[in-house]
């Protein structure tokens, strides 16, 4: 099964799926960061322009510092998110899913130069397109990946019904699907929902309550599964 996740196995033998982010959202995030950096540099240049050669020197020093430290500081102290990454809902983590360290952040951002080769980040683009976890060269060296920040696990509302236990034992996946059907009751068309519930085996629905439609009964199961 092809999926867009990278599997991490913990020492306890649990598989954690990391949803790694690919070249399109990452390029957009970089683009935003680049614009911010340009704006800062432009303002600095305007101010320093008045100070003659002293300003020139100071500008070069500040430019150097901002260019190299802007991503590192944000990544290390702001949860692996530069402003651009935050806007795109991304963050950098180690490839085992732990928060990024100063070393790794430094390595991956210094090697941005390698990704730039030969011109205009071509090496980085090719590496991101052909690497399984969409890593650029800096990521390969530092052992980091860019992942989507997981969205808050908020519960979608489901139709309130008297909870009822399903008549059959269900696996986790099947329970999730029944709950998900109830959660998506506003997005899916009524006919499609009926159709989906007609797919399920008869044994799931106790015969004595046939007067209630299958979909209603599924919603009741969903209420039970959620523990209402």
């Amino acid at each position: 099964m092809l999926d867009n996740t990278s599997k991490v196995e913990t020492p306890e033998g649990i598989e954690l799926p990391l949803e790694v982010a690919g070249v399109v959202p990452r390029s957009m995030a970089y683009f935003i960061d680049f614009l911010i950096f340009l704006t800062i540099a432009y303002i600095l240049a305007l101010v320093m322009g008045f100070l003659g050669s002293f300003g020139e020197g100071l500008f070069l020093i500040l430019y150097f510092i901002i260019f190299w430290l802007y991503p590192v500081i944000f990544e290390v102290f702001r949860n692996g998110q530069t402003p651009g990454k935050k806007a795109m809902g991304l963050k950098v983590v180690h490839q085992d899913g732990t928060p990024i360290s100063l070393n790794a952040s430094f390595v991956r951002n210094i090697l941005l130069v390698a990704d730039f080769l030969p011109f205009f980040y071509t090496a980085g683009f090719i590496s991101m397109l052909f690497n399984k976890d969409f890593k650029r060269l800096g990521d390969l060296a530092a052992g980091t990946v860019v992942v989507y920040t997981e969205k808050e696990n908020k519960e979608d509302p489901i139709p309130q019904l008297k909870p009822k236990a399903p008549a059959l034992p269900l696996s986790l996946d099947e329970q999730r699907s029944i709950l998900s059907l109830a959660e998506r009751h506003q997005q899916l068309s009524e006919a499609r929902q009926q159709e989906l519930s007609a797919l399920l085996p008869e044994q799931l629905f106790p015969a004595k309550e046939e007067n209630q439609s299958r979909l209603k009964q599924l919603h009741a199961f969903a209420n039970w599964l959620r523990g209402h």
Partner: protein
Amino acid sequence: MDLSKISIKLRPRNGYAAIDLGTRMAQKNWKSMFLSAVIFTLPLFALLIFLMPNHPIWAIFVVWWLKPLWERPLLLILSQDVFHQRPTLKEIILHGFKLLFKQLIPSITWRRFSPTRSFDAPVMQLENLSGSERRERLTALHSRSPSSISGMTIMMHLIESLMAFAIMLFILQFLPTDDIEWKIFLENLVTNSGLHLYYLLFAIGWYLAMVLMAPFYVAGGFSSYLNQRSIREAWDLELVFRQLAAKHKSRSFDYKNIIVSILVCSFIFITPKTYSADEQEIDLYAEQKSRVKAQIENIQSGPDYKRTETTTELRRINPLEPNSDEDESEEADESKSSSSSSLIGKEFGRVLSWLFLIALIVFILFKIPAMIEYFQSGARSKNEKLSNKKKPEQLFGLDLKLENLPDDIVQESKILWQQSQHREALGLLYRASLSKLIHQFDCEFEDGFTELECLIIVQQNQLSLSPYFSELTQAWRLLAYGHKLPSEQTFLTLADHWSNNFVPETSESNKQRGVDE
């Protein structure tokens, strides 16, 4: 379409994640996709270059314009692979040529510049829709689709053109000519005065970038299309429900099957064949077919195929506005100083900018604590999330619950000492101290701390009792791990000083009571 044979994991994804899945699909099929892209474009490109050797840019432009056509075989490969079919190269080429002529004119004219080109392609190519049907289907699919698809088109085009320039410059680096000066190069690019070499190199670079990126662009659009349909039609649920049904059917199948087959066998032997029944069945089938057809038409004219949604949202049109304002004022400053051009004006400008710099430095110095706080708060919230703030109930095997300690600790421990339960006596003192530290002095001990780590925390908190606590810890460690009994004198001083250090309020109130009396 048999969903149980699908080779991608079905689940509702966000727009960008769907594109990423597309990238993985393209990685998996890259060889055949790249190959077929080259097979369909290289002859054309070579022919055009041959026909007009002085205009390589036009040749590459034609190839670029015909993108929607030669992307079709790539989509064919992907759509087969999703259901675990691997067509041979011959099949792809044969099938691909047939595909080229499907809705040829609109694809390369007014649909050419649609920002959702690769997302729309499957509707035409795989669902075989055209005209108003296609339009309705697309509005339905677009109605809740995220902006990520047009974002992908823009981004991939940007990457493609960057790559084209990069490849050209890369090749240029290796050319042993001495006139690769930027001025000459740019001049040539603008004025088109000879030197077709650069154009040729650019055309080759663009061509390479195009065939390199095309599989990823097609796959991104196709995967977004699948994701959109999967969300709208709940494919993931259908798959699970079908599997569940199949599981239960096969379970009950065994005995029912046998019974039915026995019945059928007995019927074959008993009843003679009747043909009228078959005819009736055919009638029934025709009737059912027409009914289904009516139903399909009914659904297609229903609201699901013609959904319109109007959404309004507030957007900042120019997020950099405040900054540019500042710039303008800055520029105004500059122009003022230069226009006056007198020495005084210049001096004034210098003084002003020095003042500005000083003000900036002061401002930054002033703001440093706030900035540190800002960055630390991120780290701190992370730490807080990690360590649950529960107070530990036991440390190194000592029970620290308040309710399990006696009321008068000093008295109790002295009694224990006199009963020569020395270990228990000192243990009680130490246990009580830890418990007090946790509950009254808010020391943040964590599960799994050692005695010395507790001591470090106490010293860091700069509590007045830390010398006493260090003494107590030392005595306890010697007894607990070294089995060295402290002298009675040491124990008694420790016990006597305990209440001074740990219950100052009560000792004070005792004193006060003494004064009152």
